[in-house]
């Protein structure tokens, strides 16, 4: 009998304690961000997409050897005894597991990992990145695919928070960001405008999708 | 035909239709579900008869209680054989005769009898009258029914429990 009342008392006490905790959280600031409109700051040392400094790469193939899933492929032309021209440095992000093993083995420290993490695409083939020529093609294509949605989203936000919309519009041109390409250095033309290049990039899409 | 009369016919038709479905369907679970609607129709009949307390009680006890009980009964007793019901044609003919004859008897009696009708009064709510009647003139049957319910509760629990639980905890 005593245990019965004790049980009820304990139940009520713990219920009140739980309710108090959740009520406190009700008025705390939310920790999530409003993602497509707000950028998520990545931590220091975040392993995002790779960056390659092509001019100092010596095509030693050590990164490819270190890779546990063999996602790195290099093709190069030897110009003379000292210089190679890396014509293709491809990382297949279908396989890549972001383990960072390719980074420390590089003798010239030409390959590093950046902060970009937005990998979603409509086509698995577009995940096979060529770090040398990366950017231009993918950037243009993805931009054509998503441009309309992106513009709509921005228009919607503009009513409420103009500064956010402006920021997003600025980012839309930037191939590093969001739905578009990944290369910060290359392809400034992609940011100049989309309408002129639409026909051109449409062509590249059909070309790429065809096997 | 007045509005209330047309609604009455609609409700009566639905009630009897679902009642007939209960009797003639071959699927026992559907029969149990159709029975719910028959009970609801009877509750609507009580509303037409201005017995609102009784209608609510009918909904509560028949709609919410007895049908759930019946459904539990159906599902607990039909694990091995299917849910199909068989109608025995040999038995059906005499049953039709008996039920039909009984209905004709009721019908002719109801038509011919000289009922001592009184003008229906419109009660403003029967719950108070029922409550005071139960607590005064009908106190003894009320008490007996409560004792009976207690006995039934314990008895049903005793009968329905598994035999293995007698020795165990």
């Amino acid at each position: 009998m005593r245990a019965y009342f004790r049980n009820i008392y304990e139940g009520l006490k713990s219920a009140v304690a739980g309710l108090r905790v959740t009520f406190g959280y009700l008025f705390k600031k939310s920790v999530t961000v409003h993602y497509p409109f707000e950028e998520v700051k990545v931590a220091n040392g975040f392993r995002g997409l790779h960056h390659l400094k092509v001019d100092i790469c010596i095509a030693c193939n050590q990164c490819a050897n270190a890779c546990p899933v063999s996602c790195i492929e290099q093709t190069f032309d030897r110009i003379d005894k000292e210089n190679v021209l890396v014509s293709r440095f491809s990382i297949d992000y279908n396989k890549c597991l972001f383990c960072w093993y390719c980074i420390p083995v590089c003798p010239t420290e030409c390959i590093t990992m950046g902060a970009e993490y937005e990998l979603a695409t409509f086509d698995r083939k577009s995940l096979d990145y060529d770090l040398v020529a990366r950017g231009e093609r993918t950037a243009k294509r993805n931009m054509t695919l998503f441009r309309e949605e992106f513009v709509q989203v921005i228009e919607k936000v503009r009513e409420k928070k103009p500064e956010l919309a402006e920021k997003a519009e600025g980012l839309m041109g930037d191939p590093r960001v969001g739905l578009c390409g990944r290369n910060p250095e290359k392809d400034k033309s992609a940011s100049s405008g989309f309408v002129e290049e639409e026909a051109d990039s449409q062509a590249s899409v059909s070309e790429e999708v065809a096997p | 035909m007045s509005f209330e009369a047309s609604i009455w016919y609609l409700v009566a038709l639905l009630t009897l239709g679902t009642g007939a479905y209960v009797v003639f369907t071959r699927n026992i679970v559907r029969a149990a579900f159709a029975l719910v609607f028959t009970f609801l129709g009877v509750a609507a009949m009580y509303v037409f008869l201005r017995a609102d307390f009784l209608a609510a009680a009918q909904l509560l006890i028949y709609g919410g209680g007895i049908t759930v009980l019946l459904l539990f009964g159906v599902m607990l007793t039909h694990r091995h054989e299917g849910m199909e019901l068989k109608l025995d044609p040999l038995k059906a003919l005499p049953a039709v005769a008996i039920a039909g004859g009984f209905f004709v008897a009721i019908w002719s009696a109801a038509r011919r009898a000289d009922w001592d009708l009184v003008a229906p009064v419109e009660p403003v709510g029967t719950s108070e009258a029922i409550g005071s009647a139960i607590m005064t003139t009908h106190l003894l049957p009320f008490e007996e029914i409560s004792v009976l319910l207690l006995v039934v509760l314990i008895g049903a629990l005793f009968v329905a429990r598994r035999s293995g639980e007698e020795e165990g905890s």
Partner: protein
Amino acid sequence: MIGLVHYLVFAGILFCLGLFAVLTRRNAVTVLMGIELMLNAGNVNLVAFNRFVGSGVNGQIFALFIIVLAAAEAAVALAILLNIYRTYKHITVDEIHLLRG
């Protein structure tokens, strides 16, 4: 206008449906359903007479008692059926004729 005879005929049909189910069905749960239909028909009669012939609420109180008794009856009957089912593995009423547990 809906009068007493309407209710009596309605209840009569309902009662005969229940009677038919009790007479023809061999499954015990369905027999129980038929009994419930008959009890409901009786209740409709009581309440109709209460409104059109009598006065006060006596008929409704009878109907209330019948509802309560029907609930009790259903509970006990289903408990018994459950027990029968454990013994025989079926609840066909014709074939339950041995009085042993």
